[in-house]
């Protein structure tokens, strides 16, 4: 049995914590979410379907569960091997947003396709200054097959570059998005 791989990094956004959490709800679609369309399912960014399954405010914290459907990213030549119920990727996203302490935790995990690999990502956004928010990303990637796990891990590391660029774009922090007038959401 292969041991899971762990990934951790930190990203600083020069924006208020409030703006960053607003961007979380507005970030799809963005120009960078299309770049990863041909990648594998669970680590790719663009969501075509997003539904809120549960939502409530508890002790001043907003708790939400979303059900997200993404396109299957397995190469077309291998799709015949994939059972019907795994032709699309289902992702569960749970978030807890605490405005008093300026903390936002978002966990995503793939619900199907686990026979290929399991990816659990936890993002924590913490307001550190008036206009500065730090995001901590912790991810577990696990597969029974070593090669698939390494492949998924590598793809994941490449894809999060676009994920973060998409976030920066929505936040108006990316020059190329501003030049192309793509930063509309929070302006």
């Amino acid at each position, binding site marked *: 049995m292969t041991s*899971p791989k*762990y990934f*951790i990094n930190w990203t600083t956004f020069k924006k208020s914590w*409030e703006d960053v*959490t*607003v961007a979380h*709800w*507005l970030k*799809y*679609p963005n120009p960078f979410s299309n770049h990863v369309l041909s990648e594998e399912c669970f680590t790719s960014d663009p*969501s*075509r*379907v*997003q*539904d*809120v*399954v*549960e*939502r409530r*405010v*508890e002790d*001043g*914290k*907003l*708790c939400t*569960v979303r*059900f997200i*459907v993404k396109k299957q990213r397995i190469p077309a030549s291998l799709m015949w091997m994939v059972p019907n119920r795994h032709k699309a990727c*289902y992702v*569960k996203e*749970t978030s*807890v*947003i605490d*405005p*008093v302490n300026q903390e936002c*935790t978002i*966990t995503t*995990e793939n*619900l199907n396709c686990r026979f290929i690999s399991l990816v*659990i990502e*936890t993002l*924590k956004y913490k307001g550190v200054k008036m206009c500065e928010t730090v995001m901590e990303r*912790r991810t*577990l990637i696990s597969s029974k097959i070593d090669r698939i796990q390494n492949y998924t891990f590598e793809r994941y590391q490449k894809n999060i570059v676009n994920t973060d660029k998409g976030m920066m774009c929505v936040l108006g922090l990316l020059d190329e998005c501003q030049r192309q007038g793509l930063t509309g959401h929070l302006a």
Partner: protein
Amino acid sequence: MNSISDECTPLKHDYDLCFNSWYSEKFLKGIPSTECEELFKTYQTCVKKALVERGLEIPDFSPTKEENNGTDGQDA
């Protein structure tokens, strides 16, 4: 972004519009308000039915567990 069911998509869009405004203008400012609840109920009824029809399990809602997971990150 669309709903899993075309039938629910307009309900989702109406709700999302309400939610986005509520989130910025009320929730983040600590102002209690239930202005989107009716839209949410209508949308939820539609989406839950759509999930059941597709044989999809509705994911569990467990914020406490998720918060704990966030601390050490990986034991989910």
